[in-house]
C-alpha cells in the first residue's frame, strides 16, 4: 500500500511539472464533467443527482427508500471516483439547507469528495447557509473542516475573499473560532487587516486567552500591518494550525490517486507560518539572520509587494516597480531573489543597511567577542561565512563591510580558524591602490605565510590567484573605452587610472613571486606548492591576450628553474605551456605596438628576461646544452667536472630529464625490446629522436608540445622529417 501511494505520488509530481495547474486543470474538470453528463443520460448516477436536487423542504427522511437508494449510489460513486464540480455544488446545497435533515447533512458532508475542483460559489453559498444559523453546531464544524480540507481545490477565491467580513463575524462563536481563524488565515490579504478587526481579535484574545490559532492569525495581521498590532510569538508555539482533514484524507487521496488528477490537495495546509527550526540558542547570537518582516512604515496600499511575499523570479519581474524592502536588511542575506532585486535597484541606503548589519555581526563575532572553541559556534560561524560567500558570488562583488572586516581580521587571525572561508572571502577583495594593499593585505598575509605549513602556503597562493583572476575579469569588463582608465563603480565616481590598476597588479604579482620563491626554497620545492605557483603564472602569462591588460611580468628565476628542473613531468609541462603563452602575449604586444601610435611599452627588460628563460629551456630540454655558458643557467666548468657526472650537458634534455626518464625508458624498451643494456643516448639518433618526441607528446604533454612547436618550428602532430637539432627561434 505504501509502495503504491509512493508510486502515484511520483506520477502526480511529474505530470504536475508538465502542465501548469491553473487553466489546464479547470479545462480538465470541465471535460470530466462533460463526460459524466454524457454518460449520465444512461447513467444511474445522473438520475440520482437529479433526484437529490429535487428534494424539497420537509421531506421525510426516515423510511424514505428512494432517498436512501439515491444517496447510497452517489456516496459510492463519490468515495470511489469523486464528485464533479456541479455535483459538489448541488450536494453541498442540499446538505447545508437541511432540506433532508441534519443527519443527512452530516452524512453528505462526509462523502463530499471532489474529483477535481470545488467551485467557489458552492462555498460562498455554504457560508450564507451558515449565516442563516439553522445548522446544528456539529454540522457547522464539519462544514468548516471540509472547507479547510478542500481549500486548495477551490477554483478561485476572490468571491470568498469578498465575504471576508461575514466569515470574520463567526469568530465570536467560540466553537467555530479555531476553524474560522484558520480559514481567515488562508484568505487574509493586506486590505483585510483593519483596525476594527484587530481590536475584535484582541478582544477575543482577552476572552479566550493565549490560543495558537488566534496567535497565528494575529501574527499574520502583524506581518501586513505592523503599525496596528504587535506580538511576540514564542518559538515553541510557532507550529501553525492543526490539521482538520482526518475525515476525508484517506478517501480524498484515494480518489485523487485514481483520477490521476494534476491537482494535489495539500495535506499540509497548516504550514502557513513556517518557523525556522529552532536551534539551541547561543549565548551571543550575533550571527542570527533576522527574520523577514515588514518595515514599520509599511505602506498599507494594496499594490505594494513585500519581498517576503514573492515566490518566484516571474513574480519579482511583474512587481518590481512596487516592492517594499523589509524592516531589517540583514534578513535578505542569502536570499537570491532579494539580491536580484537589490542588484537591480541600486539603492544606496539599502546596501548600507545591509553593510552596517553585516559588518556589525562579523565584528562582534570575530573581533570583539572572546573566542569560544565550541564546535557548535564554529559550525554556525562557518555557515554564516558561507552564506556571505554565496551572496558575494551571486553579486560578483565583495560587500564593503566584509572587506573592512577582513583587513581588521587579518592582523589577528591565526591562519587556521575557518581557513577556507576566510581565504575565499579574501579572494573577493576588490581592487585598491597599491600602497593600501601592501599594508592591509600583504604584510599580515606574509607573516602568516612564512610561519605556516606548506598547505597553508598553497591555500594562500590559490587565494591570490583567484583574486587576480577576479580583478582581471573586472578590468576586462569595465575598462572604459576612451581612456584606459577603469571604473571601480558603475556611476563612474570612483575610478582608478589604468596605471594605478597596473601598479596594483604588478604589486600583487611581485608579491606572489616573492612568496612562491621563498616558499619553494623553504619547503624544498614541494610539488603541491610548485603546482599552485604555476597555476598563478598560468593566469599571469595571459593577462594581455585574455584580459586586455597590457602587462607582461615574467616569473622570477627562483620560480622558473625549480619548475624547469622539477622531478615531476606535470610541472615541466605546465612551464612549457606558460612559456608558450608568454610568447603569444609578447608577440601580440609587439605587433600592436608597431601598428598603433599610442603604444604602451613592454620594457626591454621583460623581453630580455623572457629570452633568457627561453634559451635556458630550449638548450636544456632540446639542445642538450644545460649549464653551458650563454644558456641562462651557468655553472662553473670546474665544478661540473668535479661533480663527475658524465655528459652533464645532456642530463636535463627530454631523454635524461628526471621528469621524463621514465618515458625514455619505456620508449627504449619498445624500440629495442631485445636489448639487455639500456643506452638512452641511442634515442637521440636520427629518426628515433622524432619518434621519441612524438611518443612523449602522445602522453598528453600538450603544454610542452605547444612550446616545442612554436619555439623550434617543429610540428609533431603529423609525422615530420625535420632535424632533431633545429635551432630555437622566437628571439625577439
Amino acid at each position, binding site marked *: 500500500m505504501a509502495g503504491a501511494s509512493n508510486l502515484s505520488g511520483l506520477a502526480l509530481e511529474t505530470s504536475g511539472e508538465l502542465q501548469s495547474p491553473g487553466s489546464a486543470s479547470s479545462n480538465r474538470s470541465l471535460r470530466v464533467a462533460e463526460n459524466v453528463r454524457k454518460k449520465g443520460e444512461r447513467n444511474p448516477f445522473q438520475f440520482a443527482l437529479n433526484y437529490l436536487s429535487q428534494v424539497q423542504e420537509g421531506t421525510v427522511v426516515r423510511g424514505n427508500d428512494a432517498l436512501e437508494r439515491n444517496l447510497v449510489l452517489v456516496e459510492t460513486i463519490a468515495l470511489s471516483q469523486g464528485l464533479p464540480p456541479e455535483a459538489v455544488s448541488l450536494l453541498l446545497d442540499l446538505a447545508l439547507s437541511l432540506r433532508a435533515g441534519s443527519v443527512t447533512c452530516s452524512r453528505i458532508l462526509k462523502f463530499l469528495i471532489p474529483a477535481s475542483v470545488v467551485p467557489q460559489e458552492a462555498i460562498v453559498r455554504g457560508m450564507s447557509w451558515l449565516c442563516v444559523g439553522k445548522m446544528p453546531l456539529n454540522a457547522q464544524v464539519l462544514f468548516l473542516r471540509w472547507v479547510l480540507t478542500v481549500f486548495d481545490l477551490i477554483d478561485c477565491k476572490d468571491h470568498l475573499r469578498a465575504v471576508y467580513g461575514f466569515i470574520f463575524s463567526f469568530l465570536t462563536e467560540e466553537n467555530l473560532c479555531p476553524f474560522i481563524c484558520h480559514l481567515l488565515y488562508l484568505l487574509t490579504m493586506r486590505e483585510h487587516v483593519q483596525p476594527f478587526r484587530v481590536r475584535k481579535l484582541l478582544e477575543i*484574545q482577552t476572552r479566550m486567552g493565549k490560543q495558537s490559532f488566534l496567535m497565528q492569525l494575529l501574527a499574520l495581521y502583524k506581518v501586513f500591518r505592523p503599525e496596528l498590532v504587535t*506580538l511576540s510569538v514564542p518559538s515553541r508555539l510557532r507550529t501553525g494550525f492543526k490539521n482538520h482533514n482526518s475525515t476525508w484524507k484517506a478517501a480524498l487521496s484515494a480518489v485523487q490517486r485514481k483520477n490521476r488528477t494534476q491537482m494535489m490537495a495539500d495535506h499540509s495546509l497548516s504550514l502557513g507560518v513556517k518557523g525556522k527550526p529552532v536551534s539551541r540558542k547561543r549565548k551571543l547570537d550575533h550571527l542570527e539572520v533576522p527574520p523577514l518582516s515588514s518595515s514599520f512604515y509599511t505602506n498599507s496600499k494594496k499594490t505594494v509587494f513585500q519581498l517576503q511575499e514573492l515566490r518566484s523570479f516571474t513574480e519579482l519581474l511583474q512587481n518590481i516597480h512596487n516592492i517594499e524592502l523589509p524592516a531589517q536588511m540583514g534578513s535578505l542575506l542569502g536570499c537570491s531573489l532579494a539580491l536580484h532585486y537589490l542588484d537591480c535597484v541600486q539603492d544606496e*541606503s539599502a546596501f*548600507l543597511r545591509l553593510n552596517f548589519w553585516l559588518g556589525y555581526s562579523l565584528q562582534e563575532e570575530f573581533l570583539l567577542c572572546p573566542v569560544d572553541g565550541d564546535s557548535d559556534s564554529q559550525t554556525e560561524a562557518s555557515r554564516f561565512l558561507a552564506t556571505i560567500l554565496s551572496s558575494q558570488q551571486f553579486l560578483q562583488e565583495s560587500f564593503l563591510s566584509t572587506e*573592512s572586516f577582513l583587513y581588521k581580521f587579518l592582523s589577528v587571525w591565526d591562519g587556521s580558524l575557518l581557513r577556507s572561508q576566510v581565504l575565499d572571502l579574501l579572494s573577493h577583495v576588490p581592487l585598491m591602490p597599491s600602497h593600501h594593499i601592501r599594508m592591509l593585505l600583504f604584510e599580515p598575509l606574509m607573516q602568516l605565510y612564512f610561519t605556516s605549513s606548506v598547505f597553508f602556503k598553497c591555500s594562500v597562493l590559490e587565494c591570490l590567484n583567484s583574486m587576480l583572476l577576479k580583478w582581471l575579469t573586472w578590468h576586462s569588463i569595465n575598462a*572604459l573605452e576612451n581612456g584606459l582608465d577603469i571604473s*571601480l563603480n558603475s556611476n563612474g565616481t*570612483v575610478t582608478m587610472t589604468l596605471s594605478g590598476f597596473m601598479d596594483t597588479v604588478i604589486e600583487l604579482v611581485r608579491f606572489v613571486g616573492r612568496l612562491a620563491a621563498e616558499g619553494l626554497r623553504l619547503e624544498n620545492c614541494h610539488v603541491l606548492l610548485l603546482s599552485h605557483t604555476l597555476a598563478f603564472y598560468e593566469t599571469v602569462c595571459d593577462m594581455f591576450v585574455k584580459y586586455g591588460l597590457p602587462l607582461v611580468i615574467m616569473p622570477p628565476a627562483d620560480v622558473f628553474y625549480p619548475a624547469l628542473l622539477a622531478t615531476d613531468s606535470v610541472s615541466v609541462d605546465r612551464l612549457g605551456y606558460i612559456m608558450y603563452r608568454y610568447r603569444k602575449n609578447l608577440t601580440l604586444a609587439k605587433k600592436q605596438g608597431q601598428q598603433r601610435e599610442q603604444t604602451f611599452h613592454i620594457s626591454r627588460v621583460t623581453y630580455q628576461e623572457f629570452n633568457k628563460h627561453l634559451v635556458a629551456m630550449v638548450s636544456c630540454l632540446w639542445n642538450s646544452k644545460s649549464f653551458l655558458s650563454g644558456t641562462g643557467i651557468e655553472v662553473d666548468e670546474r665544478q661540473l667536472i668535479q661533480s663527475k657526472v658524465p655528459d652533464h650537458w645532456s642530463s636535463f634534455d627530454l631523454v635524461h630529464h628526471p621528469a621524463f626518464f621514465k618515458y625514455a625508458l619505456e620508449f627504449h624498451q619498445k624500440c629495442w625490446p631485445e636489448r639487455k643494456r639500456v643506452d638512452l643516448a641511442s634515442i637521440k639518433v636520427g629518426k628515433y629522436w622524432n619518434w621519441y618526441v612524438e611518443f612523449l607528446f602522445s602522453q598528453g604533454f600538450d603544454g610542452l608540445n605547444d612550446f616545442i612547436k612554436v619555439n623550434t618550428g617543429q610540428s609533431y602532430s603529423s609525422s615530420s622529417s625535420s632535424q632533431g637539432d633545429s635551432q630555437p627561434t622566437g628571439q625577439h
Partner: protein
Amino acid sequence: GHGSARQVALSPRSRSYGRSCVEPPSLFWQTPGRLTALGQRTPTARGAAKAYNITVRMYTVALLVQNEWKLSYVTPLYRFQYTKLKLYSRHLAAFILAEKQQGVAVEVGMEAGFRVTFSAVFGLAEKEEDAETVFIQIYSKPMFAADTPKMVWRGWLTCVNGDPEYLRSLPPDFVSLPLFCSNGSEYLTARVKSWFGRTFDCSFGSLCLSSATLNWLAALWTGCHPTCDIGYLKLYWSMPTQPTLDVEYTVNPHDAWELWNSICAQDGAEDMVSVEEVQRFMAGLETHLFRHFKIYLSAGSLVKVSTALGSAHQDGKIKIGSSDYITTLLTLLTECALLKTPV
C-alpha cells in the same frame, strides 16, 4: 562626460556605490598611523576641556547627571524621524508588553503595563552634523490608578562632535546617534535595543573603553581644575600578578593639575592637547607611585578614572558628576562609538 553615462548603462552594478573602506569617509581609514587590532585609530590631538555652556533645559541634563550609564555603540538609524517621537513611544510600549506576555497580541496605542516617552534633548549637539540627543524613559503603570507611574528604565542616544566628514557621507535617510547610554534592567535594555533594531535596522554592540581613552579622560578632567574643582583624581589599576593586585591611586587635585600644567606649559598651543602630553602626564603619575611603592603601573591596565566631574570604567560604565564639562566627555565617547561603527 557621456563616457561615464554610457558606462552606467553597460556595466553591472558595482561595489557599494562609490564607498570604499580604504578611502575617506570610512572611519577605518580616517587618520594615518599604525593600525591597531581592530583598525581603530585615535586622533593624536584634541581640544582641551571647555566648560559647558548651559542652554539645554536643565531638567533633562539633570537626568543625565548622577546616574550610572552603560555604554553601547549603535550603527546609524534608518528613517528615524524626530517628528514621530509620540508614535515611537506608543510602539515601544506595545512592543515591550508583547514581549513580556509572549504569544498575546497587543494593539499598538493601547497604554497598558508600560508608558514610554521619547523626547529630544536640544542643545547638546555641537556641530551642524550632530543629530539631536534622544532621551527615552520607561515607566511601569501601577496596579492602582491612584499611584504615580514609576520610572523603571531610562536611556539616551547621542552624538556630540561626531566626525563631520563621516556624518555628511551618510545618505539623508540615516540618523547617526552612535552613543547609547542606558540605565535600568538588562531585560528592558535588551527589549529597547531589539525594538530599535527592528524599527530602524540598526545594531547595538557594547562599548568598552580602552586605557588610552581613560588616559585622555584623566588628563582632560585634570585640565579643568582651575575653573572647576575636580575634587580628586582617582585612578584604578589592575596588576597582572598572582593573586591580582588592584591599585587605587588618589591624587590631590591641585598636585595633579600642577603636574599637568608643567607639561602643558612646555608646549605652546593653549587649547589643544596632544597625545604625547597625555602620555607624559600619566608617566609622571606612574613614576611618582613607583618612587614610593616600587610598582610599575605601566605593567598593569588602567581600569577606572574618577573625579568629581565623573567617572569612567573600562567595561563601558560611566557616571556624569557635573554637567559643566559634559561636552568634553561626550565628544570623546562619541568618537569611541563611531570608531566601532563597522563601515
